[in-house]
C-alpha cells in the first residue's frame, strides 16, 4: 500500500506518495533505495548516485535533510502533531512575534497565489505574508501597528 506524505519545505507543501521504492510527486516518479546508517544518518541511492542525509522524528513530523536541503514530512496516519504554525492552511499566522506594518487586503478580496496580503516586521526586517494559493480572504484579524504572536490568526482564507 502506498504511503501518503505531505512534505513541507519552508512554506511550500507537496503531496507525495511512496510505494515499493517509487516516489511520486505531481505525477513524476523516481525510484530510490534508502538505508539506515549509524548516528541518525541515512543513505539514499538513486541509480548510481548515493547521498547521505539525516532524519529525525519530532513532534511535528519527520524532519529530513539531504545535501543541504531540509524538509519536514507528515505521514498519513503517523499521528504526528503538526506545529501550530502550519496546523491550518486556511488560517495564516505569523512565523514569530512581529509587528504588523501594512495590510494590503480586506475581507472578501479575491487574491492569486503569491499576492501580498500583509507585511510584518521583526528583527528589523520586513516580512511579506503572501497568499498561499488562489482564493478569497474571509476575514482579517489584525490591524496595522499591532504586535502579533505565533498563535495569532492574521487572516482567514478560503
Amino acid at each position, binding site marked *: 500500500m502506498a504511503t501518503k506524505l505531505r512534505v513541507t519545505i519552508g512554506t511550500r507543501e507537496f503531496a507525495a506518495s511512496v510505494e515499493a521504492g517509487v516516489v511520486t510527486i505531481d505525477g513524476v516518479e523516481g525510484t530510490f533505495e534508502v538505508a539506515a546508517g549509524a548516528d541518525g544518518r*541515512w543513505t539514499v541511492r538513486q541509480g548510481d548516485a548515493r547521498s547521505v*542525509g539525516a532524519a529525525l522524528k519530532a513532534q511535528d513530523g519527520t524532519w*529530513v*535533510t539531504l*545535501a543541504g536541503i531540509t*524538509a519536514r514530512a507528515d505521514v498519513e496516519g503517523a499521528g504526528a502533531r503538526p506545529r501550530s504554525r502550519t496546523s491550518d492552511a486556511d488560517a495564516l499566522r505569523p512565523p514569530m512575534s512581529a509587528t504588523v506594518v501594512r495590510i494590503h487586503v480586506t475581507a472578501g478580496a479575491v487574491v492569486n497565489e503569491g499576492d501580498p496580503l500583509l507585511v510584518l516586521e521583526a528583527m528589523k526586517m520586513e516580512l511579506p505574508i503572501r497568499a498561499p494559493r488562489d482564493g478569497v480572504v474571509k476575514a482579517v484579524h489584525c490591524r496595522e501597528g499591532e504586535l502579533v504572536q*505565533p498563535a495569532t490568526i492574521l487572516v482567514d482564507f478560503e
Partner: protein
Amino acid sequence: MMRRVLIANRGEIAVRIIRACREMGVRTVAVYSEADAGAPHVLAADDAVEIGPAAASDSYLKVDALLDAARRTDADAIHPGYGFLSENAAFAARVESAGLTFIGPSSSVIAAMGSKTAARKAVSAAGVPVVPGETPASQDLAAVRASLGRVGYPALLKATAGGGGKGMRIVRSDDEADEAIAAASREATRAFSDGTVYVERLIERPRHIEIQVMADRHGQTVHLFERDCTLQRRHQKVIEEAPGPTVTPAIRERMTRAAVAAAQAVGYVNAGTVEFLLSGDEFYFLEMNTRLQVEHPITEEITGVDLVRAQLLVAAGERLPFRQDDLSVRGHAVECRVYAEDPASGFLPQSGPLLRYREPQGPGIRVDAGVREGQSIGVHYDPMLAKVIAYGENRTAAFARTTRALEDFDILGLQHNIGFLAALLRDPRVVACDTHTRFIEEHIESFVPGYTDEQLHALVALAAVADGSGDPRDPGSGGRGPGFDPFETLNRGVF
C-alpha cells in the same frame, strides 16, 4: 595586555572573540539576556553576567547594564563585536570615561565616520574618490545641465526630498538631459511638492569591494587586502569572497592606498573596513565601518592573520604584530552566511529548535557559529545560524569546498537558506563574476527555492522510510544514549 575582557555581544562573534582571548591568556566575561542563558557564548567565557530581558533594547543595547557587568566582574576592557553597540560613539565614550579600554577606534573617530556626509568630506579631502554628485546651484535647465556635465554620464537625477524611486531618472547623454530633467522635476513636485533634483553619477553594475585596514597607536596603518561582497540581498551580504576575483593588481594598488589614506585621514586606530563600489576601473568610497566585520574570517584565511588577536594587541597599546611587507594573499576564501530563513517565502525568518545541528568538517573548512544542537532559535535576534568559511588553493577549489561544506551541513528542525547559497555558488554568472550588487534581486528566480525535483523526490523517499515508527531503522528512538549500539549494520531499507 588587558586582564579581563567583557564581550558586549552574543552568538558567533562573542564565541569567536572569547576564543581569541583564551588563546592570549586573557580572561573573558560573557553577557547574556534571559533568552540566551545556556547559549554557547555563555559557556565559552570564564564568567557570565545576565543583563536583562530578551529584547535587545533591554539587554545587549543597554549601556548601563553592560558597564555595571564590567564593573562587577572587574573587567578592564570591552569588545563590542559587530552590530548592537559596536558603532555607537556614545557607548564608546561611556566605556572610555569609565576608565575601560574600548576594543575599537576612539569614540570621536566612530562619530566622525558615523555621519555619511562628514565621512565623505573627510576621505574626499584625503584624495579618496567618492561618487560624484552635487545639488545644482539653481534648478533651471541650464544649471542642472551644467551639473550633469560636471558629474558625468551616465548620471542619475534624484528628488532631493524624495525616495522610493520617485523623481528618479537615468540620463545617459546630453541629448537625453532636457527631457529627463523636466520629467524628474515634474514627478518630484507631484510626489513631494518639491521639484528640487540632485545630480549624481550613476554607478552601473557595481561590485561591492571593501578593504580591511588595521592601525596601531604607534602610527602604523596597514591594509589586509580586499573582500568582494557583491552578492547581496536587500543590502545584506550573502556570500563574500577574498581576494576580489575581478580586482586587478592595479586596482588593488589604488584601492588599498585609498583605504589607508582614508583611515589615516581620521587618525584611525584598530580594525576597520573601507567600503567601495567598483565599476569598471573606477571605484568610489561608500562608507567606513569602524568595527570588525561579519566577513572578517575570509581575510584571516587568505592572509594567515588573526584579526581579533591583532585588535587585542592594538587595544593594549602594543604595536601591530605585522608590517605591510609581511602581509600577502595566499589562495582564495569564501564565506556563506547560513540563516534560519525560508527563501521560498521571501526569506521569512524562521524560528524553532535545532533538533539536529551538525557542522561540516574537513581541511580548509571553518564554521563560526554561536548555536548548538538542541538550542531553540528564537525571534529576538538576527537569524544568522553560522558562517561557513572555506579556503582553497584557488577560487575554483574554494568554491568546490564551500559547496561540499554546505552539502554536509545537517540542520533539522527549521528551514534555512543552504540550498539558496548552494544554488548561488553553482550559478554560471556567479562563477564568471558576471554579477553586481543587485544581481540576486534581479535573478532571484534562479536561486529560489534552491532545490531540484530530484532532491525533493529523494527527500520524500528518505522521509517515508525514516518515518516508519517502531522500525529498527528509526533514528528517533533514542539512538544517541549511552546504551546505543555503535555498530548498527547498514540495514537496507527496502520499503
